[in-house]
Protein backbone atom coordinates (compact mmCIF):
# COMPACT_ATOMS: atom_id res chain seq x y z
CA UNK A 1 0.00 0.00 0.00
CA UNK A 2 1.28 3.39 -0.90
CA UNK A 3 1.44 5.83 1.98
CA UNK A 4 -0.63 8.92 1.72
CA UNK A 5 -1.48 11.76 4.00
CA UNK A 6 -4.57 9.73 4.74
CA UNK A 7 -2.44 6.86 5.97
CA UNK A 8 -0.51 9.34 8.03
CA UNK A 9 -3.71 10.71 9.48
CA UNK A 10 -4.93 7.24 10.30
CA UNK A 11 -1.67 6.42 11.98
CA UNK A 12 -1.78 9.68 13.88
CA UNK A 13 -5.34 8.96 14.91
CA UNK A 14 -4.22 5.59 16.23
CA UNK A 15 -1.42 7.20 18.16
CA UNK A 16 -3.79 9.72 19.63
CA UNK A 17 -6.33 7.03 20.38
CA UNK A 18 -3.56 5.20 22.18
CA UNK A 19 -2.94 8.27 24.23
CA UNK A 20 -6.59 8.51 25.08
CA UNK A 21 -7.13 4.87 25.89
CA UNK A 22 -4.04 3.97 27.75
CA UNK A 23 -3.92 6.21 30.70
CA UNK A 24 -2.29 9.43 31.59
CA UNK A 25 0.30 11.03 29.45
CA UNK A 26 3.23 12.54 31.28
CA UNK A 27 3.18 16.28 31.18
CA UNK A 28 5.42 17.83 28.64
CA UNK A 29 8.72 18.75 30.16
CA UNK A 30 8.27 16.22 32.94
CA UNK A 31 11.92 15.35 32.67
CA UNK A 32 13.65 17.62 35.11
CA UNK A 33 17.19 18.72 35.36
CA UNK A 34 19.53 20.30 32.95
CA UNK A 35 21.01 17.42 31.05
CA UNK A 36 23.72 17.99 28.57
CA UNK A 37 22.42 18.05 25.07
CA UNK A 38 23.32 14.99 23.02
CA UNK A 39 25.43 15.50 20.00
CA UNK A 40 28.36 17.73 19.40
CA UNK A 41 28.97 21.41 19.73
CA UNK A 42 27.16 23.58 17.26
CA UNK A 43 28.77 26.08 14.97
CA UNK A 44 27.37 29.55 14.94
CA UNK A 45 25.60 30.70 18.05
CA UNK A 46 21.93 31.60 18.00
CA UNK A 47 21.36 35.01 16.62
CA UNK A 48 24.56 35.03 14.61
CA UNK A 49 24.21 37.14 11.49
CA UNK A 50 23.62 35.36 8.20
CA UNK A 51 26.80 34.69 6.29
CA UNK A 52 27.39 36.98 3.36
CA UNK A 53 27.19 34.23 0.77
CA UNK A 54 23.88 32.45 0.84
CA UNK A 55 23.74 29.81 -1.93
CA UNK A 56 21.40 30.57 -4.80
CA UNK A 57 17.80 29.73 -4.06
CA UNK A 58 18.45 29.00 -0.41
CA UNK A 59 17.63 30.78 2.83
CA UNK A 60 19.70 30.94 6.00
CA UNK A 61 18.40 29.45 9.22
CA UNK A 62 20.50 30.40 12.23
CA UNK A 63 21.56 27.90 14.86
CA UNK A 64 18.84 27.14 17.33
CA UNK A 65 17.05 24.45 19.22
CA UNK A 66 14.69 21.80 18.00
CA UNK A 67 12.34 20.06 20.35
CA UNK A 68 11.88 16.52 19.06
CA UNK A 69 8.42 15.08 19.29
CA UNK A 70 10.06 12.09 20.89
CA UNK A 71 12.91 12.29 23.30
CA UNK A 72 15.43 9.51 23.07
CA UNK A 73 14.07 6.39 24.70
CA UNK A 74 14.62 6.07 28.42
CA UNK A 75 13.15 2.62 28.58
CA UNK A 76 16.29 0.69 27.93
CA UNK A 77 19.46 2.52 28.89
CA UNK A 78 22.76 0.80 28.41
CA UNK A 79 24.03 -1.00 31.52
CA UNK A 80 26.21 1.18 33.68
CA UNK A 81 24.53 4.29 32.47
CA UNK A 82 22.07 6.33 34.40
CA UNK A 83 18.67 6.64 32.92
CA UNK A 84 19.30 10.33 32.96
CA UNK A 85 16.67 12.59 31.58
CA UNK A 86 17.31 13.08 27.94
CA UNK A 87 17.39 16.55 26.58
CA UNK A 88 14.07 18.18 25.82
CA UNK A 89 15.68 20.11 23.04
CA UNK A 90 18.55 19.35 20.75
CA UNK A 91 20.76 21.95 19.12
CA UNK A 92 20.55 22.46 15.39
CA UNK A 93 23.59 24.06 13.80
CA UNK A 94 23.06 26.88 11.32
CA UNK A 95 22.12 25.71 7.85
CA UNK A 96 20.69 26.75 4.52
CA UNK A 97 17.40 25.42 3.21
CA UNK A 98 15.95 25.74 -0.29
CA UNK A 99 13.46 28.60 -0.45
CA UNK A 100 11.13 26.47 -2.58
CA UNK A 101 10.45 22.78 -2.96
CA UNK A 102 12.23 21.23 -5.96
CA UNK A 103 10.07 21.78 -9.06
CA UNK A 104 9.39 19.61 -12.10
CA UNK A 105 11.60 21.98 -14.11
CA UNK A 106 14.46 21.49 -11.64
CA UNK A 107 13.96 17.76 -11.79
CA UNK A 108 14.13 17.63 -15.59
CA UNK A 109 17.57 19.26 -15.39
CA UNK A 110 18.64 16.57 -12.93
CA UNK A 111 17.34 13.78 -15.16
CA UNK A 112 19.24 15.19 -18.14
CA UNK A 113 22.44 15.24 -16.11
CA UNK A 114 21.85 11.89 -14.40
CA UNK A 115 19.95 9.68 -16.87
CA UNK A 116 20.17 6.79 -14.43
CA UNK A 117 17.25 8.35 -12.56
CA UNK A 118 14.96 8.60 -15.58
CA UNK A 119 11.72 6.72 -15.19
CA UNK A 120 12.52 4.05 -17.74
CA UNK A 121 16.05 3.47 -16.48
CA UNK A 122 16.04 3.71 -12.71
CA UNK A 123 16.58 0.42 -10.85
CA UNK A 124 13.53 -0.81 -9.00
CA UNK A 125 15.54 -0.95 -5.83
CA UNK A 126 15.24 2.83 -5.64
CA UNK A 127 11.67 3.59 -6.71
CA UNK A 128 8.28 1.92 -6.64
CA UNK A 129 6.05 1.76 -9.69
CA UNK A 130 4.56 5.18 -8.99
CA UNK A 131 7.81 7.04 -9.68
CA UNK A 132 7.04 10.14 -11.80
CA UNK A 133 3.96 8.29 -13.02
CA UNK A 134 2.11 11.54 -13.77
CA UNK A 135 4.84 12.56 -16.21
CA UNK A 136 4.28 12.29 -19.95
CA UNK A 137 7.72 10.79 -20.62
CA UNK A 138 11.22 10.31 -19.31
CA UNK A 139 12.11 13.99 -19.79
CA UNK A 140 8.65 15.45 -20.44
CA UNK A 141 6.73 16.34 -17.30
CA UNK A 142 3.63 17.07 -19.41
CA UNK A 143 0.31 18.65 -18.49
CA UNK A 144 -0.04 16.83 -15.16
CA UNK A 145 3.32 18.16 -13.94
CA UNK A 146 3.77 21.82 -14.97
CA UNK A 147 7.31 23.19 -14.59
CA UNK A 148 6.51 25.47 -11.66
CA UNK A 149 4.88 22.76 -9.53
CA UNK A 150 6.79 20.78 -6.93
CA UNK A 151 8.01 17.46 -8.26
CA UNK A 152 6.11 14.65 -6.52
CA UNK A 153 6.09 10.86 -6.79
CA UNK A 154 9.80 10.77 -6.12
CA UNK A 155 11.40 8.31 -3.72
CA UNK A 156 13.85 9.06 -0.91
CA UNK A 157 16.67 7.63 -3.00
CA UNK A 158 15.79 9.87 -5.92
CA UNK A 159 15.40 12.96 -3.75
CA UNK A 160 18.72 12.23 -2.09
CA UNK A 161 20.43 11.77 -5.45
CA UNK A 162 19.02 15.09 -6.66
CA UNK A 163 20.37 16.93 -3.63
CA UNK A 164 23.76 15.25 -4.00
CA UNK A 165 23.82 16.34 -7.63
CA UNK A 166 23.20 19.91 -6.46
CA UNK A 167 26.00 19.59 -3.92
CA UNK A 168 23.40 19.56 -1.17
CA UNK A 169 21.64 17.02 1.01
CA UNK A 170 18.18 16.27 2.25
CA UNK A 171 17.35 18.15 5.45
CA UNK A 172 17.29 16.15 8.64
CA UNK A 173 14.02 15.95 10.53
CA UNK A 174 15.50 18.45 13.01
CA UNK A 175 16.44 20.89 10.24
CA UNK A 176 13.10 20.55 8.51
CA UNK A 177 11.07 20.90 11.69
CA UNK A 178 13.12 23.86 12.91
CA UNK A 179 12.48 25.73 9.67
CA UNK A 180 8.85 24.67 9.55
CA UNK A 181 8.16 25.85 13.09
CA UNK A 182 8.47 29.43 11.88
CA UNK A 183 5.42 31.53 11.16
CA UNK A 184 5.55 34.65 9.04
CA UNK A 185 6.90 36.57 12.01
CA UNK A 186 8.10 34.15 14.68
CA UNK A 187 10.82 31.51 14.78
CA UNK A 188 8.65 29.19 16.85
CA UNK A 189 4.97 29.08 16.09
CA UNK A 190 4.19 26.22 18.47
CA UNK A 191 2.61 28.58 20.94
CA UNK A 192 0.35 30.08 18.27
CA UNK A 193 -2.93 28.12 18.10
CA UNK A 194 -3.91 29.83 14.85
CA UNK A 195 -0.74 28.59 13.17
CA UNK A 196 -1.33 25.06 14.38
CA UNK A 197 -4.91 25.28 13.17
CA UNK A 198 -3.82 26.40 9.70
CA UNK A 199 -1.52 23.40 9.38
CA UNK A 200 -4.19 20.99 10.57
CA UNK A 201 -6.68 22.41 8.08
CA UNK A 202 -4.24 21.71 5.29
CA UNK A 203 -3.76 18.15 6.53
CA UNK A 204 -7.52 17.73 6.42
CA UNK A 205 -7.87 18.77 2.78
CA UNK A 206 -7.73 16.18 0.02
CA UNK A 207 -4.62 16.04 -2.13
CA UNK A 208 -5.24 17.92 -5.41
CA UNK A 209 -4.43 15.92 -8.57
CA UNK A 210 -1.79 18.51 -9.48
CA UNK A 211 -0.08 20.45 -6.69
CA UNK A 212 -0.26 24.26 -6.70
CA UNK A 213 2.81 26.18 -7.90
CA UNK A 214 5.70 26.60 -5.49
CA UNK A 215 5.51 29.88 -3.64
CA UNK A 216 1.71 29.77 -3.48
CA UNK A 217 1.46 29.49 0.30
CA UNK A 218 3.23 31.67 2.84
CA UNK A 219 6.77 32.95 3.27
CA UNK A 220 8.06 32.29 6.76
CA UNK A 221 10.38 34.29 8.99
CA UNK A 222 13.45 32.79 7.32
CA UNK A 223 12.22 33.58 3.84
CA UNK A 224 11.23 29.98 3.09
CA UNK A 225 7.98 29.17 1.29
CA UNK A 226 5.50 26.32 1.42
CA UNK A 227 6.78 24.30 4.35
CA UNK A 228 3.11 23.83 5.12
CA UNK A 229 0.22 23.77 2.71
CA UNK A 230 1.77 22.49 -0.51
CA UNK A 231 3.26 18.98 -0.33
CA UNK A 232 4.80 16.68 2.28
CA UNK A 233 8.57 16.59 2.06
CA UNK A 234 11.22 13.92 2.44
CA UNK A 235 13.76 14.15 5.23
CA UNK A 236 17.15 12.55 5.31
CA UNK A 237 16.53 10.51 8.47
CA UNK A 238 12.86 9.64 7.96
CA UNK A 239 13.60 6.07 9.05
CA UNK A 240 14.44 7.09 12.60
CA UNK A 241 10.80 7.14 13.60
CA UNK A 242 10.49 3.60 15.00
CA UNK A 243 6.87 3.78 16.05
CA UNK A 244 5.09 2.25 13.07
CA UNK A 245 2.87 -0.77 13.34
CA UNK A 246 5.42 -2.56 11.22
CA UNK A 247 8.19 -1.90 13.68
CA UNK A 248 6.22 -3.22 16.59
CA UNK A 249 7.78 -6.46 17.63
CA UNK A 250 10.91 -6.02 15.59
CA UNK A 251 12.32 -3.05 17.38
CA UNK A 252 14.89 -2.67 20.07
CA UNK A 253 12.70 0.00 21.59
CA UNK A 254 10.63 -1.59 24.31
CA UNK A 255 8.64 1.59 24.35
CA UNK A 256 7.35 0.88 20.90
CA UNK A 257 6.02 -2.51 21.87
CA UNK A 258 3.10 -1.54 23.96
CA UNK A 259 -0.06 0.41 23.92
CA UNK A 260 0.26 4.18 23.73
CA UNK A 261 3.82 3.81 22.69
CA UNK A 262 3.19 6.51 20.19
CA UNK A 263 2.42 9.14 22.74
CA UNK A 264 3.90 8.31 26.10
CA UNK A 265 7.33 9.49 25.11
CA UNK A 266 6.15 12.54 23.32
CA UNK A 267 7.54 15.87 24.35
CA UNK A 268 4.38 17.75 23.51
CA UNK A 269 1.32 15.52 23.21
CA UNK A 270 -0.70 18.53 22.15
CA UNK A 271 1.26 19.02 18.98
CA UNK A 272 -1.11 17.09 16.74
CA UNK A 273 0.43 18.40 13.54
CA UNK A 274 3.84 17.10 14.58
CA UNK A 275 2.23 13.74 15.42
CA UNK A 276 0.85 13.57 11.91
CA UNK A 277 4.16 14.34 10.26
CA UNK A 278 5.81 11.81 12.53
CA UNK A 279 3.22 9.19 11.63
CA UNK A 280 3.53 9.95 7.95
CA UNK A 281 7.29 9.55 8.07
CA UNK A 282 6.86 6.31 9.96
CA UNK A 283 4.72 4.96 7.15
CA UNK A 284 7.35 5.59 4.49
CA UNK A 285 9.91 3.36 2.89
CA UNK A 286 12.84 4.54 0.84
CA UNK A 287 11.37 3.47 -2.48
CA UNK A 288 7.88 4.84 -1.83
CA UNK A 289 6.42 7.58 -3.95
CA UNK A 290 3.22 9.54 -3.44
CA UNK A 291 1.32 12.23 -5.27
CA UNK A 292 1.64 14.58 -2.30
CA UNK A 293 5.28 13.92 -1.42
CA UNK A 294 8.11 16.07 -2.71
CA UNK A 295 11.30 17.48 -1.21
CA UNK A 296 13.78 20.32 -0.94
CA UNK A 297 17.48 20.34 -0.13
CA UNK A 298 19.63 21.70 2.69
CA UNK A 299 23.26 22.55 3.28
CA UNK A 300 25.19 23.10 6.50
CA UNK A 301 26.17 26.76 6.90
CA UNK A 302 29.89 27.48 7.24
Amino acid at each position, binding site marked *: MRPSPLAGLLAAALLLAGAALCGPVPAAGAAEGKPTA*PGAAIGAGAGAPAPRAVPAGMAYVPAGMYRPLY*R*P*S*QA*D*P*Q*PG*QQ*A*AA*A*ADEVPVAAYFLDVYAVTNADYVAFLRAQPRWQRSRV*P*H*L*FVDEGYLSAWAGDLEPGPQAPPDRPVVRVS*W*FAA*RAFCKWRGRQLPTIAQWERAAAATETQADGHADPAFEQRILEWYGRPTPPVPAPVGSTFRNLWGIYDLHGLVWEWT*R*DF*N*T*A*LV*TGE*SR*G*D*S*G*VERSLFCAAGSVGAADPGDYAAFMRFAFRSSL*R*GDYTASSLGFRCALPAP
Partner: protein
Amino acid sequence: MHGKTHALAVLLLATALGLLARPGLAPAHGGMKGMGQELPPAELSGNSIYQLGSEWKDVHGAPVPLASLQGHPVVLAMVYTSCEHACPVLVEDMKRIEQTLSPQERAEVIFALFSIDPARDTPAALAAYRADKGLADGRWHLFTGDPDDVLELTVVLGVQYRPDGFGGFSHSNLVSLLDARGVVRSRLVGLHANPAPLLAALHGLLGG
Protein backbone atom coordinates in the same frame (compact mmCIF):
# COMPACT_ATOMS: atom_id res chain seq x y z
CA MET B 1 37.62 12.09 -0.33
CA HIS B 2 38.68 12.63 -3.89
CA GLY B 3 40.10 9.14 -4.02
CA LYS B 4 36.90 7.72 -2.74
CA THR B 5 34.84 9.62 -5.26
CA HIS B 6 37.11 8.34 -7.96
CA ALA B 7 36.85 4.79 -6.72
CA LEU B 8 33.08 5.11 -6.64
CA ALA B 9 33.01 6.42 -10.18
CA VAL B 10 35.07 3.46 -11.30
CA LEU B 11 32.81 1.13 -9.38
CA LEU B 12 29.69 2.64 -10.92
CA LEU B 13 31.18 2.34 -14.36
CA ALA B 14 32.18 -1.22 -13.69
CA THR B 15 28.72 -1.97 -12.37
CA ALA B 16 27.18 -0.46 -15.47
CA LEU B 17 29.33 -2.70 -17.62
CA GLY B 18 28.31 -5.72 -15.61
CA LEU B 19 31.89 -6.45 -14.69
CA LEU B 20 31.26 -6.70 -11.01
CA ALA B 21 28.81 -9.48 -11.58
CA ARG B 22 31.90 -11.66 -11.95
CA PRO B 23 33.07 -12.70 -8.53
CA GLY B 24 36.58 -13.14 -9.82
CA LEU B 25 36.90 -9.38 -9.57
CA ALA B 26 36.28 -9.42 -5.86
CA PRO B 27 39.33 -7.99 -4.16
CA ALA B 28 41.72 -10.50 -2.69
CA HIS B 29 41.46 -9.84 1.01
CA GLY B 30 40.71 -11.70 4.17
CA GLY B 31 39.55 -14.83 2.43
CA MET B 32 36.47 -13.39 0.76
CA LYS B 33 34.84 -16.14 -1.18
CA GLY B 34 34.12 -15.81 -4.81
CA MET B 35 37.19 -17.16 -6.44
CA GLY B 36 36.62 -19.97 -8.84
CA GLN B 37 32.87 -20.08 -8.35
CA GLU B 38 30.57 -20.32 -11.31
CA LEU B 39 29.68 -16.96 -12.81
CA PRO B 40 26.29 -15.55 -11.96
CA PRO B 41 24.41 -13.77 -14.73
CA ALA B 42 26.19 -10.61 -15.72
CA GLU B 43 23.14 -8.38 -15.57
CA LEU B 44 22.41 -6.78 -12.23
CA SER B 45 18.81 -7.17 -11.15
CA GLY B 46 16.93 -3.90 -10.70
CA ASN B 47 16.07 -5.05 -7.20
CA SER B 48 19.60 -6.00 -6.26
CA ILE B 49 21.10 -4.22 -3.28
CA TYR B 50 24.30 -4.28 -5.31
CA GLN B 51 22.80 -1.35 -7.20
CA LEU B 52 24.25 0.54 -4.25
CA GLY B 53 27.74 1.71 -5.08
CA SER B 54 28.88 1.84 -1.48
CA GLU B 55 32.26 0.67 -0.31
CA TRP B 56 32.96 -0.67 3.18
CA LYS B 57 35.90 -1.55 5.37
CA ASP B 58 36.42 -5.07 6.66
CA VAL B 59 38.06 -6.12 9.93
CA HIS B 60 41.47 -5.57 8.36
CA GLY B 61 40.56 -2.06 7.24
CA ALA B 62 40.63 -3.18 3.61
CA PRO B 63 38.12 -1.52 1.26
CA VAL B 64 35.35 -3.85 0.13
CA PRO B 65 32.76 -2.83 -2.46
CA LEU B 66 29.35 -4.00 -1.33
CA ALA B 67 28.93 -5.58 -4.75
CA SER B 68 31.85 -7.92 -4.10
CA LEU B 69 29.54 -10.03 -1.92
CA GLN B 70 27.57 -11.14 -4.93
CA GLY B 71 27.74 -14.63 -6.23
CA HIS B 72 26.70 -16.20 -2.93
CA PRO B 73 23.67 -16.22 -0.72
CA VAL B 74 24.25 -13.68 2.05
CA VAL B 75 22.68 -13.76 5.50
CA LEU B 76 23.06 -10.29 6.96
CA ALA B 77 22.07 -8.01 9.79
CA MET B 78 22.86 -4.46 10.88
CA VAL B 79 24.17 -4.24 14.43
CA TYR B 80 26.70 -2.37 16.55
CA THR B 81 29.33 -4.01 18.68
CA SER B 82 28.77 -2.14 21.93
CA CYS B 83 25.16 -3.31 21.87
CA GLU B 84 24.43 -5.34 24.99
CA HIS B 85 20.96 -6.64 24.38
CA ALA B 86 19.39 -7.10 21.00
CA CYS B 87 22.45 -7.40 18.77
CA PRO B 88 24.00 -10.44 20.47
CA VAL B 89 20.65 -12.17 20.15
CA LEU B 90 20.52 -11.32 16.46
CA VAL B 91 24.02 -12.71 15.98
CA GLU B 92 23.06 -15.87 17.92
CA ASP B 93 20.03 -16.22 15.66
CA MET B 94 22.37 -16.03 12.67
CA LYS B 95 24.75 -18.55 14.21
CA ARG B 96 21.87 -20.95 14.69
CA ILE B 97 21.13 -20.61 10.98
CA GLU B 98 24.78 -21.34 10.28
CA GLN B 99 24.71 -24.43 12.50
CA THR B 100 21.79 -25.98 10.68
CA LEU B 101 23.73 -25.99 7.42
CA SER B 102 25.85 -28.88 6.23
CA PRO B 103 29.58 -28.16 5.81
CA GLN B 104 29.10 -28.03 2.04
CA GLU B 105 26.23 -25.59 2.39
CA ARG B 106 28.16 -23.45 4.85
CA ALA B 107 30.95 -23.08 2.34
CA GLU B 108 28.49 -21.44 -0.05
CA VAL B 109 27.00 -18.89 2.33
CA ILE B 110 28.34 -15.54 3.49
CA PHE B 111 27.31 -14.20 6.90
CA ALA B 112 27.66 -10.44 7.06
CA LEU B 113 27.26 -7.88 9.83
CA PHE B 114 27.16 -4.19 8.95
CA SER B 115 27.74 -1.68 11.72
CA ILE B 116 25.24 1.11 12.32
CA ASP B 117 27.81 2.74 14.62
CA PRO B 118 30.74 3.52 12.32
CA ALA B 119 32.08 6.14 14.73
CA ARG B 120 32.98 3.49 17.30
CA ASP B 121 33.02 0.33 15.22
CA THR B 122 36.48 0.61 13.76
CA PRO B 123 37.92 -2.36 11.88
CA ALA B 124 39.83 -3.26 15.06
CA ALA B 125 36.63 -3.16 17.13
CA LEU B 126 34.95 -5.39 14.57
CA ALA B 127 37.88 -7.81 14.64
CA ALA B 128 37.67 -8.02 18.42
CA TYR B 129 33.94 -8.57 18.21
CA ARG B 130 34.34 -11.35 15.66
CA ALA B 131 36.87 -13.11 17.87
CA ASP B 132 34.75 -12.61 20.97
CA LYS B 133 31.66 -14.07 19.33
CA GLY B 134 33.56 -16.93 17.73
CA LEU B 135 32.51 -16.05 14.21
CA ALA B 136 34.38 -18.14 11.69
CA ASP B 137 36.91 -16.24 9.64
CA GLY B 138 36.28 -16.56 5.94
CA ARG B 139 32.57 -17.11 6.45
CA TRP B 140 31.62 -14.17 8.62
CA HIS B 141 32.33 -10.69 7.33
CA LEU B 142 31.99 -7.60 9.47
CA PHE B 143 31.86 -4.20 7.86
CA THR B 144 32.01 -0.59 8.88
CA GLY B 145 31.64 2.36 6.58
CA ASP B 146 30.68 5.91 5.84
CA PRO B 147 27.68 7.12 7.90
CA ASP B 148 25.84 8.13 4.74
CA ASP B 149 26.33 4.66 3.27
CA VAL B 150 25.13 3.16 6.55
CA LEU B 151 21.98 5.24 6.32
CA GLU B 152 21.46 4.19 2.71
CA LEU B 153 21.83 0.51 3.53
CA THR B 154 19.41 0.77 6.45
CA VAL B 155 16.85 2.33 4.14
CA VAL B 156 17.34 -0.34 1.48
CA LEU B 157 16.92 -3.13 4.02
CA GLY B 158 14.06 -1.44 5.87
CA VAL B 159 16.01 -1.14 9.11
CA GLN B 160 14.93 1.77 11.29
CA TYR B 161 17.44 3.12 13.75
CA ARG B 162 18.32 6.14 15.79
CA PRO B 163 20.68 7.02 18.61
CA ASP B 164 18.97 6.30 21.93
CA GLY B 165 20.64 9.20 23.72
CA PHE B 166 22.65 6.87 25.96
CA GLY B 167 25.44 5.97 23.58
CA GLY B 168 23.50 3.17 21.94
CA PHE B 169 20.94 2.82 19.20
CA SER B 170 17.36 1.80 18.97
CA HIS B 171 17.00 -0.26 15.84
CA SER B 172 14.85 -2.80 14.06
CA ASN B 173 15.91 -6.37 14.55
CA LEU B 174 16.07 -7.83 11.10
CA VAL B 175 18.01 -10.66 9.51
CA SER B 176 17.88 -10.54 5.72
CA LEU B 177 18.68 -13.24 3.18
CA LEU B 178 20.06 -12.10 -0.18
CA ASP B 179 20.34 -14.37 -3.15
CA ALA B 180 23.52 -14.51 -5.24
CA ARG B 181 22.38 -11.45 -7.17
CA GLY B 182 21.64 -9.39 -4.11
CA VAL B 183 17.86 -9.56 -4.12
CA VAL B 184 16.26 -9.88 -0.67
CA ARG B 185 14.57 -13.27 -0.59
CA SER B 186 13.58 -13.62 3.04
CA ARG B 187 13.62 -11.66 6.28
CA LEU B 188 13.44 -12.62 9.92
CA VAL B 189 11.67 -9.93 11.88
CA GLY B 190 12.29 -9.63 15.59
CA LEU B 191 14.50 -11.44 18.07
CA HIS B 192 14.32 -15.23 18.30
CA ALA B 193 12.19 -15.23 15.18
CA ASN B 194 11.29 -18.61 13.76
CA PRO B 195 14.08 -19.18 11.23
CA ALA B 196 12.14 -21.79 9.22
CA PRO B 197 11.00 -19.51 6.38
CA LEU B 198 14.47 -18.05 5.92
CA LEU B 199 16.07 -21.49 6.08
CA ALA B 200 13.63 -22.81 3.51
CA ALA B 201 14.48 -19.92 1.20
CA LEU B 202 18.19 -20.47 1.81
CA HIS B 203 17.96 -24.16 1.02
CA GLY B 204 16.09 -23.23 -2.12
CA LEU B 205 18.95 -20.97 -3.14
CA LEU B 206 21.45 -23.71 -2.41
CA GLY B 207 19.65 -26.08 -4.72
CA GLY B 208 17.56 -28.11 -2.34
